[in-house]
């Protein structure tokens, strides 16, 4: 059946024919080995020998080999030593040493009859192509010969294998030319004697995975060419991948082996100069991948990545020894090898990955459009590939939308909160026992700071970049999650794409983006996930792992609430509607309760705030009370908040009218949420709801998502089989819906294209430098304006409250000198200090005080800022008569400078101050003596200041009994100043501030971290194949 070199008839020995020894590596291959052997037997190449290495098979493979080749041509290994070990054993044979070529062959590979001859021909017979060391065949599927499996491979610059083939790519002759490639697979690899003797054989440490890459790379370094000839065809069964071969226990994923091989190959095969730049870049990218995997809850993949690096570290001495060997035969530069590496930008692969991500966990996706006449190819293309089309348009639109973000200039304006300069500040605030922003206190930070710290870390601590990253990425995430949610529920990608587009182009979304409202944009991204889970919980859909499902719902709720606690109101609205209108209410309620409980646990600092002061935590004072704007889902002004933004609710109602029976329940629930959201938004803005329930932007966001969901559900039923029915009401409805959506999405896209966002470089008011250029040192800014539902001029952020008087009312906010801070995401402002501020403003509005500046001074307020013309006349009159608030000339802003301002932390050395600091009533505070004070730096736990003389140290942070002031070796318990701040008498010398309850916060945060780790582990994604 098989022959060896010695057995060929002498006449057949063509003098010029090179000899080829086939090294057949087999293991547990009884099921298909026969076909492999038959293919060898039918080879047309004259001088062909075969030697087989049995890698400790247990299924009779060895017997088959003996029957076919005879005992003396079989090498039996006592254990599975992998390909490298098997080949190593084979090349010890004299026949192998003498053969011109070795052909490494896997047992599940069947060669075409002339495959060997063609490979030899490619190795020796191509004019002008010298020093061919390795040749591989074109590999097709074992059964389907038109399906391409291998045409030679490449890698990226970092050793990750890359094939030019698409999944399921058919052989249409597109690769039918001899290709010079970086490497060919070892399933059928012809190696010249010179090549393997010069470079050595396979590195056994690869354990049979990607050792072909390293081997070919080394051969290339030695100056040999690697070719793929399509004239030689091999069929590959992929027995291991199919699970047909009894495999040994697999410890690691393919990602692990690929990564391990990539790094070891680089370390061995790149020159020193190349390594000098490749390794740092690889490290950065590797860390980014690690973060990406962790964020995507692919923890096992992330672990494999780390394990691969660990393996390389542990085996570095061996790698270096092999590197010396590889580099010793080097005859070409790395540049010559890199020619055969894949380009860094691999768009098709990116699309593949995007598709995998977008359609992850989907059930079968329905084909929207079967075939179209040739003349309508473009339309057919669009309808047939809605995701591709939507993604392309979306990317273009996104690129236009974020055009202002390109460049080194920081983006400012709108309601954008300033990011701290480093991730350390974010993590520090998260772990801090005391709040370092505004009026301080012992209020915990939101878990959102952890996520933002990660973003800041990824952006190298560059605050501007972090802002751009979050602002740019969140709308994309919102679109992706909305699409995934809709597509999963409707199984119609076309309508899901349209609904997702309508969602991110809604008036609310564009308003939030324009204003730089990162917390609300997080809500945009998370609400689709929450809705999807609720829909699943209350539907008849089978849930594989209910606990994981419920925890996932809780994690989404926690993320939303961590950034914007008010989102709890929108989520609650969704839950209520599902409870009232859902199907499997028992299961749904149970899963929802599990989700709510998990969400509460994962965001327990936020929940604690909500329990302490629900109004401050949940409410928002932003949002229009114009009912028409509410109808078109526009909480405020800005690009895309015009009347055409009404397309979304109009389309939703159309979908409700035309919904199919199967989708009617879902559409009805979505419409109910939309209507209730709009109504609640208006009632909130108009002041009819209690503060704890009033949050217009959140309600409008919920309504916008529900409207988009109604469109997705309604449209998916409406378009199904539309062209198979006679024209009627349904077709008319579909046409009308298409028109509404086309006009709406088109018009909103146009707005995006032309928009001048509120957030942009130089987005601060021209008058802001009046405040910003103020004398050094910390101070606070009181922002005021009429309660018209608008934010303050940048960088004032949003109001934190409204004070009402019979004559006038004011919205107000308080920031430090940099304006609103991202450190306050998810963390409301409440406590006795804010109560004091409120009472001062009430006093001012009552019109009976002329010393508002003196009353504001304990808060550290140096400036009072309002938008020009935004102060109600009675309030403006009240400010005008203040003896200690001086109007500062500033175009575009109304700025009062507080003549009685005090620093946020100071030592008053005048003895008259002590009773003043002890005062807690406004009259006493207003009449306090005017004395010089010694400014000290803002207080932080462990911070140290000094005082030249004895006096009263006063810190305008909310009092907490956990503070201690260390002075003259004594730890002094502070007393409340002004009824809410911190003060103590001190002697000359250093003053240290110590927060004694820090351990409690540390423990809380450790617990929070553990809870998140547990939740992420429970909801982790399955490991990659």
């Amino acid at each position, binding site marked *: 059946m098989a022959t060896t070199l010695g057995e060929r008839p002498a006449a057949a020995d063509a003098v010029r024919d090179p000899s080829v020894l086939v090294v057949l590596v087999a293991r547990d291959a009884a099921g298909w080995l026969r076909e492999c052997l038959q293919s060898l037997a039918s080879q047309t190449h004259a001088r062909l020998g075969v030697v087989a290495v049995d890698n400790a098979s247990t299924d009779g493979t060895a017997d088959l080999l003996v029957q076919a080749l005879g005992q003396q041509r079989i090498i039996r290994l006592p254990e599975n030593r992998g390909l490298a070990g098997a080949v190593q054993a084979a090349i010890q044979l004299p026949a192998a040493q003498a053969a011109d070529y070795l052909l490494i062959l896997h047992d599940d590979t069947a060669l075409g009859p002339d495959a060997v001859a063609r490979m030899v021909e490619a190795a020796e017979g191509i004019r002008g192509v010298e020093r061919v060391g390795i040749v591989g065949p074109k590999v097709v599927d074992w059964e389907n010969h038109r399906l391409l499996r291998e045409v030679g491979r490449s890698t990226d610059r970092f050793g990750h294998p890359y094939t030019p083939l698409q999944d399921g790519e058919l052989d249409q002759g597109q690769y039918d030319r001899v290709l010079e490639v970086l490497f060919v697979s070892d399933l059928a690899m012809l190696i010249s004697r010179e090549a393997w003797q010069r470079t050595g054989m396979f590195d056994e440490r690869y354990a049979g995975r990607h050792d072909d890459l390293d081997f070919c790379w080394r051969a290339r370094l030695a100056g040999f060419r690697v070719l793929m000839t399509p004239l030689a065809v091999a069929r590959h069964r992929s027995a291991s991948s199919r699970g047909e071969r009894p495999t040994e226990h697999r410890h690691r994923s393919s990602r692990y082996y690929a990564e391990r091989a990539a790094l070891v190959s680089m370390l061995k095969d790149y020159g020193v100069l190349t390594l000098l730049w490749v390794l740092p870049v690889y490290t950065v990218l590797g860390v980014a991948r690690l973060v990406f995997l962790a964020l995507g809850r692919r923890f096992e993949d992330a672990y494999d990545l780390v394990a691969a690096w660990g393996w390389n570290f542990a085996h570095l001495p061996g790698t270096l020894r092999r590197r010396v060997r590889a580099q010793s035969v080097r005859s070409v530069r790395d540049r010559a090898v890199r020619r055969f590496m894949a380009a860094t930008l691999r768009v098709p692969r990116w699309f593949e990955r995007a598709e995998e991500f977008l359609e992850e966990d989907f059930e079968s996706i329905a084909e929207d459009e079967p075939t179209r006449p040739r003349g309508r190819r473009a339309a057919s293309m669009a309808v047939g590939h809605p995701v591709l089309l939507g993604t392309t348009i979306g990317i273009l639109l996104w690129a236009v939308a974020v055009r202002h973000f390109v460049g080194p200039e920081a983006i400012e304006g709108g309601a954008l909160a300033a990011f701290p300069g480093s991730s350390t500040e974010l993590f520090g605030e998260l772990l801090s026992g005391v709040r370092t922003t505004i009026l301080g206190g012992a209020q915990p930070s939101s878990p959102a700071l952890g996520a933002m710290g990660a973003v800041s870390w990824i952006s190298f601590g560059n605050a501007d970049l972090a802002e751009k990253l979050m602002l740019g990425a969140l709308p994309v995430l919102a679109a992706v999650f909305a699409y995934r949610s809709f597509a999963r529920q409707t199984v119609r990608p076309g309508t899901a794409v349209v609904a997702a587009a309508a969602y991110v182009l809604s008036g609310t979304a564009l308003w939030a983006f324009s204003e730089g409202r990162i917390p609300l944009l997080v809500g945009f991204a998370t609400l689709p996930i929450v809705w999807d889970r609720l829909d699943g919980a209350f539907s008849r859909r089978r849930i594989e792992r209910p606990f994981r499902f419920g925890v996932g719902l809780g994690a989404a709720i926690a993320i939303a609430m961590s950034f914007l606690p008010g989102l709890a109101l929108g989520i609650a609205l969704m839950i209520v509607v599902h409870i009232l209108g859902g199907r499997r209410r028992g299961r749904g309620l149970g899963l929802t309760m599990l989700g709510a409980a998990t969400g509460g646990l994962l965001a327990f600092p936020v929940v604690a705030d909500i329990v302490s002061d629900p109004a401050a935590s949940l409410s928002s004072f932003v949002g229009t009370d114009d009912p028409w704007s509410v109808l078109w889902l526009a909480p405020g002004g800005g690009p895309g908040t015009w009347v055409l933004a009404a397309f979304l609710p109009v389309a939703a109602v*159309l979908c409700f009218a035309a919904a199919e029976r199967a989708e009617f329940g879902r559409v009805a629930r979505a419409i109910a949420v939309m*209507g209730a959201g709009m109504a609640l938004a208006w009632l909130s803005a108009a002041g009819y709801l209690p503060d704890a329930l009033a949050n217009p932007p959140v309600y409008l966001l919920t309504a916008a998502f529900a409207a988009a969901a109604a469109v997705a559900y309604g449209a998916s039923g409406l378009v199904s089989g539309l062209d198979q029915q006679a024209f009627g009401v349904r077709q008319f409805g579909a046409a009308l819906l298409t028109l509404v959506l086309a006009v709406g999405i088109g018009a909103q896209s146009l707005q995006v294209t032309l928009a001048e966002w509120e957030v942009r470089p130089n987005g601060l008011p021209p008058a802001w430098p009046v405040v910003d250029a103020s004398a050094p040192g910390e101070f606070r800014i009181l922002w005021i304006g009429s309660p018209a539902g608008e934010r303050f001029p940048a960088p004032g952020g949003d109001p934190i409250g409204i004070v009402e*008087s019979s004559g006038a009312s004011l919205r107000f906010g308080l920031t430090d000198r940099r304006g609103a801070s991202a450190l306050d995401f998810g963390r409301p402002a409440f406590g006795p200090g804010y109560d004091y501020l409120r009472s001062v403003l009430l006093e001012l509005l*009552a019109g009976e*005080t002329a010393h508002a500046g003196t009353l504001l001074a304990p808060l550290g307020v140096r400036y009072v800022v309002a938008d020009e013309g935004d102060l109600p006349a009675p309030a403006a009159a009240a400010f*005008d008569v203040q003896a200690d608030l*001086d109007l500062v000339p500033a175009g575009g802003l109304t700025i009062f400078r507080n003549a009685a301002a005090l620093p946020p932390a100071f030592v008053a050395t005048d003895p008259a101050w002590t009773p003043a600091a002890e005062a807690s009533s406004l*009259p006493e505070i207003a*009449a306090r003596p005017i004395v010089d004070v010694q400014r000290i730096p803002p207080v932080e736990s462990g911070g140290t200041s000094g005082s030249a003389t004895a006096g009263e140290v006063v810190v305008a942070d909310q009092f907490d009994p956990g503070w201690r002031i260390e002075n003259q070796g004594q730890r002094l318990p502070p007393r409340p100043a002004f009824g809410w701040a911190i003060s103590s008498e001190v002697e000359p010398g250093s003053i240290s501030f110590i927060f004694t309850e820090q351990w409690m916060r540390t423990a809380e945060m450790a617990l929070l971290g553990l809870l998140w780790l547990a939740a992420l582990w429970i909801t982790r994604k399955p490991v990659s194949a």
Partner: protein
Amino acid sequence: MRRFQALAAAILVALGVGGAVYADRELGPRSLSAGAAATAPSGEWFCPHGGGKADWEVELQVANPGTEPATIRILTMGRGRAEPGGTFTVEPGSFLRLPVPAVGRERASTVEWFDQWVAVGWVAHAGGDEGGLAAEPCAATAGGRWLLPDGSTATDVDDDYVVVMNPFSRDAVFSVTLLSERTAPVQHGDLTDVVLGPHHSVAVRLSNWIKNERTVSAVIEASIGRVAAGTLGIKPQGGGVRSTIGYLGDPPGTLVFPGGSDAGRTDLAVMTAALERVGLSGQLLDEEAEQTFGGLADSAPPAQSGRTYTASTNGPTSVVFTAEAPGVAVARRTYGVVSDQGSTGGAVPAQAWVVLPAVMGSPSQPGLAFANPGTEPVELTLSYLALGLAPESAGADPIMLTIPPHRTATAPRAFLDAAPDGAVLAVADAGTFVPAAASYSRGREGFATYAVALGIEIPAGWIPA
């Protein structure tokens, strides 16, 4: 099903649109809740009293008509660094006189009050050859535009000033426009964009810019910051002194100027800061009759001018002045029977007033005049806010006084003599009126000096029960 859905969708749309229409037109935003009562009342009085040479004396007068003690804090300013004048408590129902530095024409003071509203004015005694007495209430607010009608450079000895104070902690920048009868409005570069430092004051001598005008009025416009301003008129060698606080913004169209026992001659210094002619009219209300202010009949002085209208009076006479359009400010100058002069701004009638004394030293002959321009008699209760004393130890019991309609009335001599240097609280049971102090006191070379000071209206909420 489809029909039902279409119907439900139509109802949804109708509900949405109908709800929006209803919300837009009928419902609207929720009305504001009632405001909380003030708990920390405070305020500040601005007193551009002026001063002179070393022998000038200025006293701030602070009266507390309420039931709670008031804390006050005084700051006096001029060209140099502002000088704190101390912190004092003014007991309920009493009043204090607090001397402040008076050297320099530009002298000015502020009085901050806390917890309890107080009425604040000043009385200034000119020493040396400038002998005379001037009294006036301070200004309750500072601001950007002041109208100061009372200035004169009619004779070479007229030495009148505009005193501008910046009582705040930021620079103020202001410009002065001088208006008179025969001279075009003066807007000199030196009077434009004058920078006045924090807690500083400045005096502008009118005769440096306009001469030989009976009335030289000033418009002060602050482009940056807020200021307070008044006029200080000095006529050495027996002419006496007078001072008038300015009007912040446009005064009301009708102003009442009570008058006491003066020499029988009234000069109305009328400035028209408006850009057009404004028709004027006036009535004279004495104790017996009402008559038209003849000089004002059919008068419409030119825009951007200052003009003097004179009337002769017999006994305590009040003037009711009416301008047909905004932009007109008026001061009334009157003269003592022997020497000195006085001037005052006008006011609109109100229910309750504090009248600070316009006397300094002894002998003291206080006078109180009350004008009732209304059509109904006004019943007043007059009570003393004794100098530094609690009300129960005051020397005079409250008395009732009736002012007939369209008449002027004066306080009974017996009441006045009981506490000649006390402030008076005047509260009407019904109706409104305007009071003023027109008094003689001290004197130079045996001639008592004359001063007039308008009462200070008690704001609503602070009127004693």
